């Protein structure tokens, strides 16, 4: 589920940011798949916090910042879907 170059899909943006922050934070990222559990991805909470902040700047949405108690994403697929829904 690697982002195709040139696409501006939400999924592509999210995946690119996961990879970028992992690189910056010198984390070894597990091979990404929809079923990969976020906690097993190699990204810790500081990485996820940075990713969420960057995605808010890039996509203009913060799916966690809503009144309804959004379910916390468990897998990479959940995480991507959260952004796809919010950006709709």
């Amino acid at each position, binding site marked *: 589920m690697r982002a195709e170059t040139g696409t501006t899909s939400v999924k592509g943006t999210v995946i690119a940011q996961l990879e970028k922050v992992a690189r910056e934070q010198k984390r070894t990222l597990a091979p990404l798949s929809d079923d990969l559990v976020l906690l097993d991805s190699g990204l810790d909470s*500081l990485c996820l*916090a940075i990713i*969420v*902040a*960057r995605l808010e700047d890039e996509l203009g949405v913060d799916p966690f*910042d809503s009144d309804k108690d959004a379910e916390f994403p468990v897998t990479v697929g959940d995480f991507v879907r959260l952004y796809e829904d919010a950006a709709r």
Partner: protein
Amino acid sequence: MQPAEPDSLWAALSDARPLDDRTLWGAEASVSLGDLVDGSSLGGALESLRDRSVLLAARDQLTAALALIELDGIASRVVLCPPDLAIEHLPCVAATAGVDAQVSDGAADVQAPGVATFATCTPKIAPGACDRTARHRTEWILLTSGTTGRPKLVAHTLSSLTAPIIGGARPAVPPVWATFYDIRRYGGLQIFLRALLGGGSMVLSCPEESTADFLIRAGAHGVTHMSGTPSHWRRALMSAAAQRIAPQYVRLSGEIADQAILDRLRARYPHARVAHAFASTEAGVAFDVGDGRAGFPAGLLGRRTGGPEMKVEDGSLRIRSTRTASRYLGDADERVADADGFVDTGDMVERRGDRYYFVGRRGGVINVGGLKVHPEEVEAVINGHPRVRMSRVRARKNPITGALVVADVVLDAPADGGVADVEQELVRHCRAALPRHKVPAAINVVAGLGVNGAGKLVRRDA
């Protein structure tokens, strides 16, 4: 050596050095101190202010300075209104201080309620003899610059204010002092009293004047001693007019002086002694550090003969000395000092080797997923980069960790290759020096950063 504790500011001033060749320069007018021997800035109203609790609400610093010289020892209490005092706080300040007289310069738009006696202060000295016999140890009330809510009224006396100055060596050549501060705040008042008791003259700043114009004016009057906050100095160094002064002594106080600003001042003014002082309105001046290094020697902690006693408890610096304020007016519940007489400054310090370093304010901590970050410690690292003039680190709300650290940065000169490269370079610079959670998640280059009336960096989200 300077004389022992003075009866009044006027007595101390007259003892220091002949008055005729000493001057206070404002932006629009100036006054030779000698003119006050047989003259007054209060136009014959001085006697009517005797024994009163006087609200000093002048717009202009020069008129405020003249009134202070004349009122100490005469009034029972003087409340020093800073120029940016919000008008809605005035009734409360006046009531708390039992104000029954007001001195202003006519330009002031504030008028305390329920005041019977009004006097106008002007830099045009009216000739006429004045009885300057001191009958009071006048209480000097300083207002703390609270970011929100009403200001606190902090009570000092001339002796607590001048305790850091008394006994110091008097310069051989009369000094010319200048400060970016307003003299109605503790930092500025210290400089004003140093100028007066040290036999010097002083150049007073003006809020309408640009940093460059003030530097040019100070330079024209031959400033020898100059003080300000690190933020003031960072601004000054951004101005070409920084070359217009050639001080012997450069002083920083009011904020943490990091190594970068000390080094830059030393490079800009190679002949000056560069010193940073620790002081607060409540605790008074605790110490000066003159070795050119940030922080202070661990040896300063503990008891020092005649000087302030310092200790570190729960990470914050505590001070006990004769220089501390006596109390807050009107706040029966709130004490300046604890039962043992120590003032908790709220400034957090950390020991590294044989030195203590200031890391930030207790209330300013950013919590990143349970890990604490003081904005100031990150700013110190960013400011150490050669391209950076000043920076502000703040919290950005985050749903995962509660907050993240982000930084706004003012560069030394415009970035040629676009700001993105510089921002990336600064992030790398921080990564090399800080643990992960303290590295800003974003660094934004901005055109300027706000400095408030007290000369401190404006912090909103921190």
